């Protein structure tokens, strides 16, 4: 696990504006960017890389709707069919009393469902080791990486040097 067998050439920039500039240049030169790593979310990065909008929220809506139905229909069945009990003289099917639990289960299903989906799609989770290019990309370095199958090593290195990368490295992950 954790081996992609990819030869990566990557440059580390000191500043996100330099990185953004480099990405624009790469798009202009039609260089195929493997990936970009930043220590914090950088505004305007997604459209520059041409990333699609995440579909996680659609999954979240579906999980939430399942939670709503589970809670509401579950309570309806329990309190009207399975084990009807009179609480404070209220009818068995007391919708207002169901609402808080319905709400809680909606949130719970949506939250857990989205976390599991996200981890599954991203290949994360307990016991999974993902290769990283450089530890400092979680601290203060902005990384732009090229896959040598798509961009030659010389071309990548030359590009990184001209766009002002502070460091240039090779790594097989």
């Amino acid at each position, binding site marked *: 696990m954790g081996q992609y067998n990819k030869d990566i050439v990557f440059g580390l920039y000191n500043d996100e504006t330099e990185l953004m500039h480099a990405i624009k240049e790469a798009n202009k030169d039609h260089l195929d960017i493997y990936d970009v790593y930043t220590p914090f979310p950088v505004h*305007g990065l997604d459209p520059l890389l041409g990333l699609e*909008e995440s579909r996680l929220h659609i999954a979240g*809506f579906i999980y939430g709707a399942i939670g709503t139905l589970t809670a509401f229909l579950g309570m309806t069945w329990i309190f009207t069919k399975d084990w009807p009990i009179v609480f404070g*003289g*209220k009818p068995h099917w007391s919708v*207002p009393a169901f*609402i808080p639990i319905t709400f809680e289960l909606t949130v719970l299903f949506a939250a857990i469902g989205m976390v599991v989906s996200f981890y599954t799609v991203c290949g994360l989770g307990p016991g999974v080791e993902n290769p990283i290019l450089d530890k400092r990309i979680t601290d203060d370095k902005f990384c732009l990486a090229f896959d040598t199958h798509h961009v030659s090593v010389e071309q990548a290195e030359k590009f990184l040097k001209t766009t002002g990368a502070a460091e240039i490295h090779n790594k097989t992950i």
Partner: protein
Amino acid sequence: MNSSNMTRYSMPAKQRTILLSGMALGLISLVITWFGDDAHHTRFWTNFLHNSVFFTGISFMAVFFYSVCNTAWAGWHIQFKRIWESMSMFLIVGAVLIGILTLTTVFDLNHLYHWADSHSVHEDKILEHKSSFLNNGWFIVSFLVILVWFYFAFKIRSNSIEEDERHDKEYKIHFKNRWWTATFLPIAGFTSCLVIWQWVMSLDAHWYSTMFAWYSLASLFVSMIALTILILIYLKSNGYYPNISLEHFHDLGKFMFAFSIFWTYLWFSQYMLIWYANVGEETIYFKTRQDDYPVLFYANLVINFLLPFFILMRNDTKRKYGTLIFVGLVVIFGHWLDFFLMIKPGALHTAHELAGHHGDAHGAADHGHDMVAHASEAGHHAAAHASTFEAGFTLPGFLEIFTAIGFLCGFLYFFYTVFSKSNLVAKNDPYLTESLHHHV
């Protein structure tokens, strides 16, 4: 239009005509309501109270949210903060409207409030018990509160305009304004509860709810944000505010979405606690509304919760003018209906009670006798027995709608007049750059 013309707003003649005719329509509706009314002019006074509170509340919410943003060092709204400054100036008109209401209540001319009727108070243990708060003195205090609000709003706006005039490098005016806004917040927090209890909640004088102030103020907040969105879209479509982008609308849309949910949360919390506890004096409030006003009662939730919730849930609907305009119009109308439902049943019940007590004393023999009969049957079954003024009470009639349009046009007319007297953009605000580069 060149750029020098665009630093200030000027009201086109056509807009002026439309707003003035809307105001005339509202005035005519009020007059018609007055003369087609029962002996106590219940329908007229409830309509007057309803719209006065609603639009005064919107202008209060403008200065309140402005103060929240300023105190929180927010920068995204700076470009259009003049809109909220100008909206808040309507408080002075609100003071006049509520002033009329206060005078007529103190001198016993409007009969809106059950607790203001000394005869009822003496006979009624609950009202007598509450008379240390529900009395003319406190009602006058709640009128004075608007003047305090207006004083703060006025100071905040003048400071902001002064900042335009001279560029102070040490941001002295900015910090001075921060003091004003931060001071306003606790004052606004406590006094807004006071006034909403007095003006609206005390219509059902036997009933009280500790959630009422939050719930009704959330209603006003959503309306204020919706109105801001509609005004901004209108201004942008006329070429003003070129630097306000979809990012700003996205944030305003999020506020409209989030506070619609917040409103529902408070509405439901209030409802469920009362439903669950089932204490007679409390339950009657919702019992009346659910049985006699079923359409409004459930439409309230559909319009103010389901529609904004499902329409604004997606990212892209908060970034499209079409959906924002639709939801904005819907929730303004919805929260206006919400206030209708807060005000009308209680006022109608009071009218029946009064008719029972006074009878001929007020010189309206026909209506009086009619209502004695109704009140003696069962004062609570408002809708079934309100034969004299059904349209204005169980559902908003044309007169209610036109009165509301009149008030809305008056609000907008006053707003645009004030708005055209200062620059569109606060050009020396230290956070202006942040607003220009705002990105969600």
